[in-house]
């Protein structure tokens, strides 16, 4: 099978790897470059747990043809922390019980970050819309929405746009 070289930025670091024709980005992130934070849930674009940001926009990495991220910038949950310090969204999710089994959490965090990066003061409705492509089967939506809202509406310093 043909291998193609692909280079992209992952959480600020330059990555170079080889991908198979037809391989999706989720697989390349997890197996190719070892970032295990985006999860596999469906490979159909229905669950959202593989959500990553590509050039700041949320994408389902399972539906993203890996070679299309050539030269682009990919952000995952692994890129949220600032050194030893948690991102405010991570802190809020942790303190407000917004993660039960934790499997949807990386996708939820990326969907929330995509929202707050462009709309730091969303309404509750906008938060609900922003995570409408992400399924939490433990059905902890209320806690997740509240955690996102608790970060929103705060100063940019608190939110720490990076």
């Amino acid at each position, binding site marked *: *099978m*043909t291998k*193609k070289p692909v280079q992209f930025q992952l959480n600020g670091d330059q990555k170079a790897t080889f991908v198979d*024709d*037809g391989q*999706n980005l989720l697989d390349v992130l997890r197996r190719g470059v070892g970032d295990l934070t985006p999860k596999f849930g469906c*490979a*159909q*674009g229905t669950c*959202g747990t593989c*959500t990553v940001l*590509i050039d700041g*926009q*949320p*994408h*389902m990495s*399972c*539906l*993203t*043809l890996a*070679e*299309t991220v050539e030269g682009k910038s990919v952000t995952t949950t692994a890129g949220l922390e600032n050194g030893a310090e948690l991102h405010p969204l991570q802190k809020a999710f942790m303190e407000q019980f917004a993660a039960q089994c934790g499997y949807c959490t990386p996708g939820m965090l990326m*969907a929330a970050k*995509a*929202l707050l990066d462009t709309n730091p003061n969303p309404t509750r409705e906008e938060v*609900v*819309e*922003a*995570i*409408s*492509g*992400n399924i939490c089967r433990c059905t902890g939506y209320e806690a997740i929405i509240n955690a996102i809202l608790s970060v929103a509406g705060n100063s940019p310093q608190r939110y720490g746009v990076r």
Partner: protein
Amino acid sequence: MAITVETHDRLDDAARALASDQNARFHGGGTLVMRTVNEGDEPFSKLVLTRDPAYREIRSSGGSVVLGAGVTMSAILANRELSFLHPVARSVGGPAIRSAATVGGNLFAEAPYGDFTTALLALGASVEIAGSGGQSSIDDWLRDRDRNRNRLVRAVSLDRVSDDRSFRFRKISRVKPKGVSILSIAAYLPGSGSRITGARIAFGNMAEKPVRSSGAERALDGQSINEQVAEAAAAAALDGLNPVSDAIASEWYRREVAGVHLKRLLIEG
């Protein structure tokens, strides 16, 4: 079957590559085609892509707008001039799907997807084929959709709707705030302030692909909307329609609720 991926700088080259190989499929945003690739044993062996900026261009001139087939739902939502299409674009997936899903891909989406195409059908859009493929009405293009699979759609053009009341769209799903659609309805009602002339009512998921409801259109033409007219349109809505049964809803259920939702769309806007 192993897959090969070909990416072309120019749209016309991509169109030629697609047309020359029956085992090729075009990759627009990937939301449909990658799902098939992930499942393996796909019925095609080549993916064709293009990097051509023209493919992703939104152009408006005068009262009309041209959407490159590679324009994403997110790009439509970010464009203020396309506000009449915002409710439609927002109904497609969550944000992560919308930043990939394209206008062109939606044209090929099979039930239960394709809500954007339902709107394009009501709006009487025309479909522009790359190369020397020319242009056809969306009605004709949808009719021949299976034969169009290897003809690359370059763009879709349509008249801009200025009067908010004359274009209405609703997607009905069981999951809130959104889920896969039970059905979607798009209604183009020119002159809806007084008497309607040339109504176009399109249903998504009431057949294998988006379809117009000639029964509802006849009931609305020459009328102004009131309870009675909406009732008549709802009663006639299913003439000639053959809704599908799937995991989302049965044919029976779709038949039962289609008229109800059409009536609400007409009365409540």
